[in-house]
């Protein structure tokens, strides 16, 4: 690669006067913003006041229980624990004091037995005097719900045995997938979905730091599409910023980017729910939908929102349609054909609407 710091051929084409500063900037651009703007210390964590408060207390007292963080994706679980360890040990000692494992690493029972156990029983190394550095290490098991039950069971004893010198932090989306004995050994923290205002605040902060000019409503659209998932909002922001290099980010671009189906398409679907539509009319509409590549699950979600807010439909009709949608969703999750399922849903829903009218 770039051995002598020469500008690369393609770069020369794109911009002839690229200074060294620019190329380092380009390098910086490669880091995902989610990583770049991860909270550096525990006070930076957006929202989750209760959790932060408890953890801050434990920083002062240097007393930390085993932790179990759970909650929907993108609410700051991993960020919180990483920030906490940095606050505790300082940026240098973190490397030796913390073991982070996630689903991309092999995490079968053998790894728990060897790697985790070896790390857990090692004696605590030198600490940085400027930080609290309590006399224990931390093992972070990210995405713990994708660990096998066997591996989780193997952890039980390890957690107890080495609790004097090692603390565990399990991070997962679904607490129900962590076996009971393991969950009962930890203090559980629930991370709630980010409130809209706070998410909007954080995203616009990053946008201004990265010099992305956003139109009114664009940031809100980003956050709404992400449904409380801050990481998703950030990723979308970064991808969007690449697309609108020198122009303004609009809500429309955001919608296209995150794969939201345009409202007219949904309206067209809803519009075909009348007594006078024939099956072949519906087929034309559905064919068009599928050919345009809109994912069925997304169609279903948006159509559901649309139908439930519909004032022309009675409660009974809504209930019946909701039932239909539920079974369609189940079928889709089982991997049934999108075309046939949406077709079925549309035809049956039309029947429901026609019956009552």
């Amino acid at each position, binding site marked *: 690669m770039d051995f002598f710091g020469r500008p690369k051929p393609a*770069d020369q084409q794109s911009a002839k006067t690229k200074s060294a500063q620019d190329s380092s900037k380009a390098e910086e*651009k490669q880091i995902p913003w989610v990583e770049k703007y991860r909270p550096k210390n525990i006070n930076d964590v957006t929202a989750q006041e209760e959790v932060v408060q408890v953890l801050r207390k434990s920083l002062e007292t240097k007393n930390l229980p085993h932790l179990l963080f759970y909650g929907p994706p993108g609410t700051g679980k991993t960020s919180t624990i990483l920030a906490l360890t940095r606050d505790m040990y300082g940026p240098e000692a973190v490397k030796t004091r913390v073991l982070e494992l996630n689903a991309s690493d092999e995490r079968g029972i053998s790894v728990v037995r060897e790697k985790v156990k070896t790390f857990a029983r090692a004696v605590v190394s030198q600490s940085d005097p400027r930080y609290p550095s309590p006399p224990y290490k931390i093992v972070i098991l990210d995405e713990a719900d994708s660990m096998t039950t066997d591996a989780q069971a193997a952890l039980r004893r390890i957690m107890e045995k080495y609790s004097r010198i090692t603390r565990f932090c399990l991070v997962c989306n679904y607490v129900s997938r962590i076996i009971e004995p393991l969950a009962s050994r930890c203090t559980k923290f629930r991370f709630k979905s980010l409130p809209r205002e706070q998410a909007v605040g954080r995203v616009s902060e990053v946008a201004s730091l990265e010099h992305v000019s956003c139109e009114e409503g664009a940031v809100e659209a980003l956050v709404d599409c992400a449904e409380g998932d801050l*990481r998703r909002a950030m990723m979308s922001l970064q991808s969007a910023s*690449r697309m609108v290099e020198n122009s303004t980010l609009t809500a429309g671009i955001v919608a296209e980017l995150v794969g939201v189906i345009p409202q007219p398409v949904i309206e067209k679907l809803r519009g075909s729910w009348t007594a006078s539509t024939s099956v072949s009319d519906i087929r034309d509409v559905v064919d068009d939908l599928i050919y*345009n590549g809109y994912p069925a699950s997304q169609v279903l979600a948006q159509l559901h929102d649309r139908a439930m807010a519909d004032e022309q439909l009675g409660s009974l009709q809504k209930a019946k349609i909701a039932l239909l949608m539920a079974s369609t969703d189940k079928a889709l999750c089982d991997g*049934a*054909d999108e075309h046939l399922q949406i077709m*079925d849903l549309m035809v049956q829903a039309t029947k429901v609407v026609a019956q009552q009218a």
Partner: protein
Amino acid sequence: MALWVEKHRPTSLDKLTFHSDLTEHLKQLSSSGDLPHLLVYGPTGAGKRTRIAAILREIYGSGAEKLKVSQRMFETPSRRKLEINLISSNYHIEVNPSDAGIYDRVVIQDLIKEIAQTQQVATSSARKFKVVVVHEADALTRDAQHALRRTMEKYMGNMRVILCSTSTGKIISPVQSRCLLVRVAAPSIEDVVGVINSVAMKEGITVPESFAQQLAAGSKRNLHRALLMLEAAYVRQYPFSDTHDIPLPEWELFIKDISQSALKTQTPAQLMAIRKQLYEVLTHCIPPTTILKTISTHLVDGVSEDLKPEIVHQAAFYEHRLQSGQKAIVHLEAFMAKFMSVYKRHQMASV
């Protein structure tokens, strides 16, 4: 001699004919010197692969077109050996992990980590990163997708992933949120006609307007299929006449026959005959879902309006069963039997 589909495949972003908005976006993306992870989705024959190849070319130049096929061995944790075919150039690797069945996680982990941890060696390379193209990403198991999550973030410096799939429904949301979604819609009828005409011009043949329209409609907005059909028609008879039949694939005609016979008589004997025919189609490797869909389309066309919703519902029901079940023939047959009983009852009631 290459097929027309391959011969006239656009090789760069500039040569793409339809979806000009999307092309513009992609051009901006690939020229900005950086590329996010991409998730390209859309129906078959819409040009997903063509676009991916064009992006790669745009980024790396013609070097990305020098492909070689190699075989790699992977070892599963249970010491089973897997052989996977890889298509690679100096800058990218294409894999089809569904070849590995339930062991696709191993392939993803090993391959991506290996690529990600080695840097580009060639000094002439324009970009710092390599690209991994994963075809049929919707066939990846959950495990494999989970394995992708962290790797995609961690090795962002040296590698980009391009996932190619027909729908986003089966891609887990954490992976989706790490990608830029690129929707490639099927070309409209006019787009298909346009491409047919341009290919015809390059081949030096004339295609009547009405015939081109028919081809486009018959291909169901699948460009790949439209061009194959054009070539097939050309081989069979040339010059084209306005009333020229569009050459439907043989299996489609066969399935049409099945549906017609089911509409004609509804008896156990007929069911047995249909069963044989269904087996025949299945042994020709036509996916059961396609069979069921095609049959149901013909049946819906053949029955009266008040019966149509019922048929659609049954088709959806049995297709769902088909997915959860194991033996396709059982479900196909069940659907036919159900149709016969529903249809017969309906006819008797109306008499």
